[in-house]
């Protein structure tokens, strides 16, 4: 069995009176793609935000690369964050900076003594990898939704992360661009040997990118396994309807 990189046990998180996560358990292994599925507002994004220390759990264990995230000092948390790439739902590109500056931003702040030539080489290499070398001097406002997603992924890859977290990678995109993004997620894993968590409610994305599915319902994972294990013959009506809406109804 390959090395375990994320270990989550009995994770609880609430906002005021609203209990979002009510005892989540998950293990993630190296170079594995796990898709977390669930309806909007079920706490999928909360889960990965706890993973990078943007939120803190109320209770439970969140170990990433062998370290409990909630107990880390700012310095240790930042060094852990360098090993995690986070692709945001709306790409979160810095809109006052060009694509080049967006990609330079994490690089120059975290890797010292890089020459301008090395920085440019790294940026161009990653823009090539996501198929957008021509956008290097463009502003985010000049890019389409799909291009922004790709640049967002390239920006997270610039620090060579071991783990990639994709928050709703296909949300708001047309079906063809969705397929391109799904292919990109798979390419990233093959090329950069990353371990990934993909947060989505798009079953096509889940089917194309996931080795394992984890369905979040009522604050807990109610089903886990390969796509075929979880969906076509699901007995839980909520999981079944999730599948039906995506694949059978128009």
């Amino acid at each position, binding site marked *: 069995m390959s090395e375990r990189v994320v270990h989550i046990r009995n994770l609880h998180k609430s906002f005021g009176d609203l209990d979002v996560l009510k005892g989540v358990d998950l293990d993630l292994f190296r170079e594995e793609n796990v898709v977390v599925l669930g309806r909007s507002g079920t706490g999928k994004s909360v889960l990965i935000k706890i993973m*990078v220390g943007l939120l803190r759990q109320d209770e439970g264990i969140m170990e990433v690369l062998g370290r409990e995230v909630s107990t880390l000092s700012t310095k240790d948390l930042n060094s852990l*964050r*360098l090993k995690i790439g986070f692709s945001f739902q709306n790409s*979160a590109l810095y*809109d*006052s900076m060009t694509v080049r500056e967006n990609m330079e*931003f994490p690089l120059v702040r*975290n890797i010292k003594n890089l020459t301008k030539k090395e920085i440019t080489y790294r940026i161009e290499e990653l823009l090539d990898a996501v198929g957008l070398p021509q956008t290097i001097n463009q502003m985010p406002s000049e890019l389409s939704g799909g291009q922004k997603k790709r640049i967002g992924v390239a920006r*997270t890859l610039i620090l060579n992360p071991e783990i990639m977290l994709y928050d709703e990678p296909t949300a708001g995109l047309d079906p063809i661009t969705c397929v391109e993004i799904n292919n990109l997620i798979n390419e990233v894993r093959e090329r950069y040997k990353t371990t990934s968590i993909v947060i989505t409610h798009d079953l096509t994305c889940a089917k194309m990118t996931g080795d394992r599915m984890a369905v979040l319902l009522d604050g807990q994972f109610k089903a886990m396994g390969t796509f075929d294990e979880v969906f076509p013959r699901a007995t839980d009506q909520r999981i079944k309807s999730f599948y039906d809406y995506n694949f059978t109804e128009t």
Partner: protein
Amino acid sequence: MAGEASDRKPFISKKIDKFFKGLADAWNFVKRFWQEVFLPPYEFKEVIHQCYRIGVESLPLISLTGFIVGIVFTNQSRPSLSEFGATSWLPSLISIAVVRAMGPLVTALIAAGKVGSSIGAEIGSMKVTEQIDAMEVSATNPFKFLVVTRVIATTFMIPILVMYTDFVALIGSFLNVNANELVSLSTFFVQVFESVSFLDIWSSVLKSLLFGFTIGIVGCYKGYNSSKGTEGVGRAANSAVVISMFLIFIEELLALQIVNAIRGM
């Protein structure tokens, strides 16, 4: 039980709770600024960039406002002075008014409107579009990059803008005085410098530093804590201006009392 009790609190009590919670949050924000401002890494490039945006890009508006203030104030003061045959005192009167109060106040209010709202809206929109989270997960301190740099820039640029406004307002005043009383530029400025003391200039600079800090920290605080999407961004920009202006008037009043006390010593 405690939760139930707090839910039953009357409307006024909730408002008071919210007000004091807001004050505590603001205090912690200011405290965090002072904790982080002296610690590395230092974002010099971003400070220079913000100084340029706040200073240079405000010049056209500040120039126009200062110039008009000089002309209007001179024009409005002339009839009162001429009743006593004292129009020759116009340069002294104008210089004291401009350097002591009008220059700093007008500049700070204009900057609160232009710079404060822009900082509030910019940081607010970065917050709601997760750009601040993106900085944080890439192991960069967004507070240092966004807040510390902007507050430093406003704190140091507002005094420079105030001095510039003073100069432009005095030029405006001179043109008016020259057209009506045929006073030369050198005579005008000799009178100006005879009337203005070092205390006036230093108090104006120190006051402007405070105004600049206020504009920067309020804009950043409102932007950094904005929520509820685009509506929240609009609110952040709006409240950044309103609160900055309110605080600037309070600070002006306090500064006046302190300077008058020093002058009376």
